[in-house]
């Protein structure tokens, strides 16, 4: 029996939607999960890969796999954390297939960034460079916590689940990353 049977499906939690999808296999239910997380997941993969199209293809692959094998979801775990675990593994497989870290760093330079031509303020351009430089200066594990926390709004507990470590370790990595970032950015005027 669904826990949230009295509400509209759009108000259900991710876990309830997934549970229902496993039972009924309705595309409409899966579509809601896709709508909720597609963008966030694609952005995460874009930051990791520096390649927009690869991020989009990986995101599609991930959702296709979930669509085909939804029974792999453990209803006792948060859906979002599970989704990012899959994304992280997909990214690692992608890297194993030949995209090395150096190439990723090069691709980062090509990340299309805010259309500065609309608002061509040099200050904003500089600010963006600060973001890129700061992220690139971090190790992979520190980048991950910063992106999961501040680009994808995952809680520390969810991040710990994704990275398979303790919440204390996540705090420590995040704190270290912020300490490093603050040394790289200029204080606001």
């Amino acid at each position: 029996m669904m826990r949230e049977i009295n509400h509209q499906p759009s108000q259900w939690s991710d876990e309830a939607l997934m549970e229902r999808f496993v039972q009924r296999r309705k595309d409409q239910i899966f579509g809601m999960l896709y709508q909720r997380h597609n963008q966030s997941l694609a952005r995460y993969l874009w930051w990791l890969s520096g390649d927009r199209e690869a991020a989009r293809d990986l995101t599609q692959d991930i959702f296709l796999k979930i669509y085909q094998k939804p029974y792999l979801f453990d209803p006792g775990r948060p859906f979002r954390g599970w989704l990012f675990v899959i994304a992280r593994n997909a990214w690692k497989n992608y890297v194993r297939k030949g995209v090395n870290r150096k190439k990723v760093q090069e691709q980062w330079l090509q990340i299309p960034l805010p259309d500065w031509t609309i608002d061509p303020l040099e200050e904003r351009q500089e600010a963006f460079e600060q973001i890129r430089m700061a992220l690139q200066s971090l190790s992979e594990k520190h980048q991950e916590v910063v992106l999961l926390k501040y680009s994808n709004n995952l809680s520390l507990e969810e991040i710990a689940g994704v990275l398979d470590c303790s919440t204390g370790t996540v705090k420590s990595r995040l704190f270290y990353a912020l300490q490093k970032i603050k040394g790289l950015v200029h204080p606001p005027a």
Partner: protein
Amino acid sequence: MHVHDLPEHLFDWVSSIPYDALDAQQKEEVAAFLSPEEYMSIQQWLQTLNTVNVEMDSQMRALEGAPTKVNRLRAIWHYPIPLYQVAAILLLLIAGWNLMVGLPAADQESHPVDPRAVSIEQGFYPDSLVFEL
């Protein structure tokens, strides 16, 4: 305070609450973690990250109509082929097959050499074959 013991909300405040909007108690809590300048620097950096994220989302949405890897494979599989093209290919294959099957096999024994034959190259022409024109 050990880093592991930092409360989670400190990491949330730095991304969402401007330093000046923190009350005295919150500022005191932050002080164990960051100086006001550090707090503001990090917040500015996180705000810019957020701006970039919004733009990335918008650019990703612009890609939605473009074919994905999965869609490209599906498109190949479901590519519509007109019936007349299928019929033409079939006819071509059948004609080719008939041509292959209908060709006579090279038969070495169809032109046996008569051991009594006279080699013309040697200039020996049988009289019966010489005509006076």
